[in-house]
């Protein structure tokens, strides 16, 4: 077990059921004991101390909590941690390597695709899911792919540019390989 989630389960164990789950997070298997009602977003943030995944609403609307679940973007505030047992989750913390940013991260910075940064991790992961399917999206395709993620600061125009910037770089990289 690489981590025990303590924060949430401090109530007397007698009446709180606990499930042991193993989730592959950013390539690493993490085994944790969780209450069945614990949301995946809260496990990531509070249990595993990966606070890059944000929660901006409680109604599955804002997308700040977006992570990739077996490669597909999902809203981690609307999935129970136990549902992720045996699955792979990618968060913003898994985007960059020690030495290199992911092109999407670079694109967001280069095109001023963020201001307060609160929506940014979710946006980047939604964008990653898009680009993994379609490395040459149109502006409309980008806008549609990001329409489950709200941003209150940027007006989206630069976010769209950021994703297109990343797509171009990723195409170039793919071409080189």
């Amino acid at each position: 077990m690489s981590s025990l989630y303590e924060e949430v389960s401090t109530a007397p164990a007698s009446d709180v059921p606990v499930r042991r789950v193993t989730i592959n997070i950013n390539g690493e298997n993490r085994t944790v004991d969780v209450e069945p009602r614990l949301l995946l977003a809260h496990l990531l943030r509070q249990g595993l101390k990966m606070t890059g995944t944000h929660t901006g609403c409680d109604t599955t609307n804002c997308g700040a909590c977006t992570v990739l679940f077996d490669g597909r973007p999902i809203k981690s505030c609307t999935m129970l941690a136990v549902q992720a047992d045996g699955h792979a989750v990618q968060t913003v913390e898994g985007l960059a390597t020690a030495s290199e940013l992911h092109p999407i991260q670079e694109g967001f910075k280069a095109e001023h695709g963020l201001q307060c940064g609160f929506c940014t991790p979710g946006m980047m992961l939604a964008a990653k899911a898009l680009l993994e399917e379609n490395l040459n999206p149109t502006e409309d395709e980008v806008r549609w792919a990001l329409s489950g993620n709200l941003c209150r600061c940027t007006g989206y125009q630069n976010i769209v540019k950021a994703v297109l910037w990343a797509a171009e770089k990723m195409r170039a990289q793919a071409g080189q390989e």
Partner: protein
Amino acid sequence: MALDEVKIGGMGASRLRVEDNRFIRGKGNYVDDIVLPGMLHMEILRSPVAHARIKSIDVSKAWEVPGVRLVLTGEMMAARNLAWMPTLSYDTQAVLATDKVRFQGQEVAAVIADDPYIARDACSKIVVEYEQLPVIVNPTQSMAPGAPLIRDDKEGQQTNKVFDWEIGDKEATDRAFEQADVVSKLELHYPRSHPSPMETEGSIADYDRATGKLTVFMTTQAPHIIRAAVALVAELPEHMIRVVSPDLGGGFGNKVPVYPGYVISILASILTERPVKWISDKSSNLISTHFARDVYLKGEMALRKDGKILGFRMHTTSDHGAFFSDAQPSKFKIGLLHSAFACYDIPNAHMVAEGFYTNKAPGGVAYRCSFRVTEGMFFQERMVQAAADDLGMDQAEFRRVNFVKDDDFPHRTPFGFLTDSGQYGKCLDVGLEAIDYKNFLKEKEEAAKRGKLLGIGISTMTEPLGAGNSREYDILGIKMFDSAELRVHMSGKAILRTGAKTQGQGHETTWAQIVAHELGIPADDIVVEEGDTDTAPFGMGTYASRSTPVAGAAVAMVSRKIRAKARKIAAHLLEVSEEDIEWELGRFYVRSNQERGVSIQECAMAAYSNVPDGMEPGLENTSYYDPPNLTWPFACYIATVEVDPETGVWDVLKFVAVDDCGVRINPMIVEGQIMGGLTEAYAAAAMQFITFDEAGNCIGSNYMDYLLPTAWETPGFELYEVVTPCPHHPIGAKGIGECATVGGPAAFVNAVLDALKGTGVRNIDMPLLPDRVYEAIKTGKDISGAPPVKVD
């Protein structure tokens, strides 16, 4: 030789943002990311009803939930004199209700527990018995004779009125109307909305009994104001309070006020002697924290046949909710709404403002807005279009005729504002050309023949940004200056702290650019810190687009103080007298021999190692900047739309924005601010509003009812710039953060109404939802007020 300013990231460089390095890695540090040892979690129980007497509160079952550490009610707060707190507008607000609840979502009790889930479980076990009272949801009900008194807690309060306020010369204005050829009238409602930053409010209070010190990490745009308020409320001495505002996930005015949750978490920490975290969920945030707008405006304009405006009258009726807790400068009851029409040369004006209590969440906060100017400017530009139509005049020409001309500055408005600079006609020209005005009018005519409805809407305005000066602007008596402290290290690297607080505006990037511009220290060598009252100099925070006008000016001024000292050191190092020294970016040199010089970094080293006799070592200073006036940016926004008469759906064909915010420190960031602001303008015009049913239930308590535009709906924007430097700002900059939100909505609404011109429809109140537009087209009648609550 002098440095290349763009290369060192100085003024005018579109320098990429340094804060992004942590945000793109998910390494931001927002309040909810902070974990302190032993931290407890707090959840607030809120009132499900809008107006009711509290008959009893039974918390016994909540205490029985394992893991609960404390349950707080109004009674317990009252025992410590904390049941009520002062607001930033000289009113009071309940922290936890004792007598009545006055709006849905009001704070009734709080549970502090080992984790947030337990706190929530326990909240659901609290039983409150309410005796329902008649509910007031708008000013009309509020002012009706026999209306129930909402604020029966206030001594001497006989009615639901908050204030009466008046400005201008009534008699002179009456005379202007007597001379008018045409009188144009308009009435409208600016609906209630919520700033709704993506991150909600929250705090972590950490009281240390051993030292007597209280530390509060919190989501605040104005940490020093909050410290003053906490000192007042909690009766703790200021030096024993440290307020830290870490990264903020947006603010937009919503994070200026003091919220009950902050106060409760503080008391909870004092009582439990543990850190206590409170993070509001979005639904609570939308129903209980400060809303914006909700003003009914009506007015008329006295016009001469040739298009000249002779005068105007305005009347506002504003809905303040249950507690008057707007953060407004104390002299002005309806904020700076009376800056409306400031870009037009109008000799006479009179305005009356009335405010009312209702059973709705408190607020009237400046949502991306310099104290209510948004409502004023919206009314202005809707009125201007109506007046041009009434005169049968071209709407662009009508504006041009009435603009304050470039050489008429400084210009005093009838309500006493002093505008000082601008090129209004030029901005309009740039906008008209960009939208291809003449051609569009032709296209529009032709489209009409094919049954298509095209429209063009213009909005031009100047607005007062950057409160103060301190003679006129204060909050709770605290004058509205701002500050900067610069400490240059031995190596010539530096740390800068200001009294402002960034929430996404990129201060960490731009402030360093101002220092680079003034001192030639590369921006990358300067770290910017804000938001910690223990380290930052006293300032009034960031809202009302005041950072660049006030704190930004302080940054320039403190850099100049540093340069003045460095000059003395340079003279000492170069062994010449100070008068023989010249400055170029990054270095001092001897006038007679430009080769002989010392860099600012060499001066910094000498400040710690080789100062002239009698000089104090070190190279640091502080500036408190009290601006002589507000700054007056100008904007011209033009939208073209197509309205589908069969559905009422309207699409933006093109949107051009021409902004003159003076000198731009970082053009990339300025444009980011404009695009963000335009999106909020589009939101207001198209979809974003909060309404209430008769029982006072808030409709708009989540993002399914309260619609924010996504990337899919948001139109594209074309940006243009004109630069008229601010004459009194040290680097010629003006505020910009909110211009687009303030001026933008009228461009969209004017465009839709222009498309509907032949139908007899004069006004549709925002938001212009398709069904409202459709109904207006079909009936040929105006659509007024908030959209009705649909029950299905």
